[in-house]
Each structure stands twice: as C-alpha cells, then as structure tokens.
C-alpha cells in the first residue's frame, strides 16, 4: 500500500537555525498538508498546499514557515529561524482530490530545538 514518507525521523537543531523537513506524498495525490503535534497535545493544522500554492494556513504558520514542492515528488517545510517552542512532531499528510478523501499521514519528523 502506498505510504507518505518523511525524512529525517528526528532532527536536532540549535535555536535560530534553519531546518527543512522533507516529505514524499503518495504519488497520485494532489493535496498536501503539514501538521504538528507538541508532545502530549493534539495534532494542529499548519498549512495546506494545492496546485503549487498555499490554499490555507493557520495562525501558527507565520513568516518563519514556508512550504515548497521543488519537484514532482517532494514537499518540504522550512522553518527559517527555529525557536524552542517549535519543538514538536511534524506530520506531513496527503490526499487525492475530493475534500472527503482520506488524508494519509506520514510517520512524522521529531524536531528538537535546543
């Protein structure tokens, strides 16, 4: 069964550094998402991406965050200057087309900001 993959599984960085989290969505999917989950808390929506542009973003997704689909397979989340409170599990998700389609989640990248 096709899966969403994410790399790295764990990223440790110093506060103020830039990080790029990578995702490979399921190949025929058209909509892509980033969510985050602070340890012990609920999953929170960050951003959705369709047709090479952001379709919706949350208030968490400020100017420090950006997303990109640099080629036909990868979908990246960049945090320009990480803060301690950015430490969380970041999940990428993708879905095929209709809004009622299932969103499939990747295994996540655990980001630790020191």
């Amino acid at each position, binding site marked *: 069964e096709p899966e969403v993959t994410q790399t790295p599984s764990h990223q440790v960085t110093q506060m103020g550094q830039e990080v790029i989290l990578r995702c490979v969505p399921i190949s025929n999917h058209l909509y892509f998402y980033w969510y985050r989950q602070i340890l012990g808390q609920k*999953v929170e929506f960050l951003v959705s991406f*369709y047709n090479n542009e952001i*379709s*919706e973003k949350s208030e968490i997704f400020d100017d420090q965050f950006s997303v990109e689909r640099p080629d036909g397979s990868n979908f990246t989340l960049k945090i320009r200057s990480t803060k301690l409170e950015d430490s969380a599990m970041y*999940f990428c998700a993708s879905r095929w087309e209709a*809004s009622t389609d*299932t969103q499939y989640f990747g295994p996540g990248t655990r980001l630790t900001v020191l």
Partner: protein
Amino acid sequence: GQQVMQIPQYQHVQEGEDFTTYCNSSTTLSNIQWYKQRPGGHPVFLIQLVKSGEVKKQKRLTFQFGEAKKNSSLHITATQTTDVGTYFCAGLGNQGAQKLVFGQGTRLTINP
C-alpha cells in the same frame, strides 16, 4: 474558529471492558474522521463519517455521527490490549475545507 472538543482525556479500563470517546464540534461538520495513534507513532486513519446520523462498524469498533453533524462517538466493545493508544476525532468544516481540526484525543490504557 472551529473547535473540536473530545472527552474524556484519559480512560483506563480492564481488558474486556467497553470504551467510549465523545467528540463535539463548535460548528457543523461536513464530515468527521477518526484516527488512532499508538505511543510514538503517527495518526492512522480509522474511518470517515459523512452522513447525518451515520453509524459504521469495524469489528469491535462502532462509530456514530450525530444528527446535527456536530458530534460523534467511538465505542469499542470488549477492549483488547492491542486497542491501546490515543484516539482522535478530526472534523472537516465546510465542503471543500482543507484542514482537519483535531480533538484533544482520548488516551486509552488497558489493564491486561
């Protein structure tokens, strides 16, 4: 903005007992989805409910969507140790909405 509340936050049961988690949205949902997250894992899709009053079953799991499409429940009959994890509901707002709004989750632990 849309909020999804889920109760209880924690539930500990003896193996073989039933378990129920409840989900309430501040706004009407176009559909609601349920996910299970094992400790250290990622959310895994369980089911989606779309129609008002819909009831779906998956073996020992029963999912309901309220008539007003604002609340939902997941009931597990005769829990097994493999049911351990956190169960999240997640709602989609308007038709065509992009983001899933997750509840806080119910963490289920089971005494064997």
